[in-house]
């Protein structure tokens, strides 16, 4: 008999592979929040797939007992979408860093949001490139001095939440790795949301860009009065830079592309080559 865990605990999702992250890395908090979120939803590890790209945070699937696919840099999103389109019965979570989602894979983010395929995205944003040892990222602040911007960063800072709100993303939230309980709740909500769920997580890098203190000071929970169906209001929160609002900014239920595609196949019949070739006779 195969065993299925009836009441899973977070450690039931933990693999025997030890995380490769530096001590104090924010990604540990995100990993623990993910274990907790999956356990909260009692998701079956054999029917859950965690997909990632490349970067420190993208090692993530190896530390999970679920199915996993550690792909190439920037391509986690299209891999996850192809998987969900082909297998809508599975729970698909795409994870990675700011390089994956906002730089090399930024083009994919736009289209994933517009398609509204039912996957959950968890971005671990540390505003720096960690795995390659400290170059600037799209979310690094303007003027930031890194190994690749020795005279200060000239480009503007990328605003993930404001960007995805303009793309009609159907679930937009922000969490903080130092608040894993709240983050776990957002991950649960994101997975339960039918559609493309975008969770931006502030996840500091202790080695190349120490933002713990600054983020502890700027992170602010969204007021309980916030109307999550009001996109304009969500945009106001997203545009605020002094404070970094955490919680659910925006949610809208609308048809997902994977469900629409699977409605189409309801009348499907097995392929019959003899029947098919009649059109060429």
């Amino acid at each position: 008999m195969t065993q299925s865990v009836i009441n899973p605990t977070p450690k039931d999702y933990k693999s025997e592979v030890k995380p490769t992250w530096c001590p104090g890395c924010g990604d540990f908090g995100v990993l623990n929040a993910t274990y907790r979120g999956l356990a909260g939803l009692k998701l079956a590890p054999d029917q859950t797939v965690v997909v990632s790209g490349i970067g420190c945070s993208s090692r993530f699937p190896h530390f999970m007992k679920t199915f996993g696919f550690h792909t190439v840099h920037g391509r986690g999103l299209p891999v996850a979408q192809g998987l969900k389109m082909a297998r809508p019965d599975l729970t698909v979570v795409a994870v990675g860093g700011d390089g994956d989602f906002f730089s090399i894979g930024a083009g994919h983010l736009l289209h994933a949001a517009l398609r509204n395929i039912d996957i959950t995205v968890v971005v671990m944003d540390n505003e720096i490139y960690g795995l390659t040892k400290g170059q600037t990222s799209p979310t690094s602040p303007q003027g930031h001095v890194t190994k690749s911007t020795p005279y200060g960063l000239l480009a503007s800072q990328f605003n993930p939440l404001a960007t995805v709100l303009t793309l009609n993303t159907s679930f937009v939230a922000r969490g903080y790795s130092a608040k894993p309980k709240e983050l776990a709740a957002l991950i649960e909500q994101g997975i339960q949301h039918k559609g493309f769920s975008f969770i931006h997580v502030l996840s500091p890098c202790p080695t190349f860009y120490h933002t713990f203190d600054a983020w502890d000071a700027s992170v602010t929970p969204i007021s309980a009065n916030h109307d999550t169906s009001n996109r304009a209001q969500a945009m106001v929160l997203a545009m605020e830079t002094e404070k970094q609002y955490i919680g659910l900014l925006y949610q809208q239920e609308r048809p997902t592309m994977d469900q629409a595609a699977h409605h189409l196949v309801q009348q499907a019949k097995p392929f019959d080559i003899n029947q098919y070739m009649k059109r060429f006779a």
Partner: protein
Amino acid sequence: MVNEVTIRIGGESGEGTISGGDILALAAARWGYHVYTFRTFPAEILGGPCLFQVRISDAPVKSMGDFADVLICLNKEAYDRNIGELRAGGVLIYDPSDFTPEANDKISYAIPFNEIARKEMQLFQTKNMVMLGAISGLFGPPLEAIVQVVQSKLSKSRKSSSALMEKNMLALDVAKRYVTERTTKQDQYRLGAVEKADRVILNGNQAVVAGALAARCGFFAGYPITPASDIMEGLAKELPQVGGTFLQAEDEMAALAAVLGASYGGVRSMTATSGPGFSLMTELIGLSSMAELPAVIVDAQRGGPSTGLPTKMEQSDLSFALNAGHGDAPRIVIAPANVADCYNLMILAFNMAERYQMPVLFLTDQSLTARVESVERNVFQAQEVQERIQPQKLEQELVGVGAQTFRRYAYTASGISPMSIPGKGAPSYTATGLEHDEHGHPDYEPEDHVAMMQKRYRKLATAAAELPAPTRYGDEDAVLGIIGWGSTEGAIQEAVDHARANGYKVAALHPRVLSPLPDETIRTFIGSVQKVIVAECNYSGQLANLLGAKFGLQAIRVNKFGGIPFTAADIFRAIEEVHQ
């Protein structure tokens, strides 16, 4: 009278040259003739020169024909461009209001297409019907066969109306009557009645779609590109009918990435592209090979490099297909030779992808994508579909659900390891592009990298051992051998036939699978002849380079790379030159 004719129509894109040619080919095929078409398009939607050529014969045809027997010029430019390829003693048909041909050795019929369409029909768009009516009157395809095709095409068109249908029918009739009454036939081309045959008429891209469906493809992702878009459009329409899904991706990287995601989910998946898109896909080809995920990638080759010649044929992606990507990444490369192959080898491509868990590159080219052939209907049969090897139930029970102790990349003698598919009770694992151990965990130990690399390449050796060898065509005691690949086989075989009829001892070999190469068969073939021609439509001689590197072959290289495929005459000329 000869029961074979090659008709070329030259005109302006958008004025019905291609659609008129299509109707002629279809009508001839339905009437019982073998047909084989060749066409060129400008890259623009409207305007620019285009041509359509159809070879119609009561015997099977394998190539486009060496010269046009009949050349129909719908404008002066078409005349200037094509008159050189009209056979001596061939027939030129033109409208005297367009131009006056120079004095020549051809038979000429002047037919006022423009006037009949514009004045008699009061509808210039009937010009291609006027042309078809004239062809029927002069060369024999019965008007009824053409009428049938026109009616079925027009009734599906959104511009369809009974008035329009009537005008078209009338135009066919008037033109036929015009040539019957007003021209004196001086040529020898007249197609007589033939027995009806059970054939289907389709092009390479259509056969690829049929093959994918017969192979139980369940997912397609792609990005539009000439000349592969028909495959994407075909599957976008057909997949939902058979339970599959489709995704138009934002670029080719996303397309192959989505295919790998679906394949990871256990669904047979493919994409189709051309050179520029294929270039973008290379990182994912490496991932497919490394993570051992089945994927079928059609590359409908066109002239390169870069944007190149989007609407012209070239066989110049072979070296790239064999090596695309960094590192040593085993893959399978298949090149179909004709429309029937596009069907049968697509099924093979899926079966090989699933069995050997690696990318399969399927190299067609522009000429084959658009080439319409009449093919015996029984070529298109249901075939056994190879499933990927999954872990035994027993192993699942031992391992337990969700335990990442499953050896996804287990070392086996064949190199093929059982692959778990996400779902109830399946042992989980993480697929990765990093080097890994048998469980899929990241692992850079030298001995493990060596063992894993050998395991991945062992699958290619297993595939080579399991594949049927290509067969030799021509003389057993040939002194000259010709090796080719892809869509040029028909022209090569017709040249071999012609050479043998002229007393030469020639044989040809045309491998369909180019990775893994059928080493023994090629070595034996090379050893059995004194000289070897390697004929391919590219500049650098990509197959010749490969055979030189692998077998030390000093081939006589025959390369054509202007965007037009080999004719049998091109190859025959090369055979003669070698013998001189």
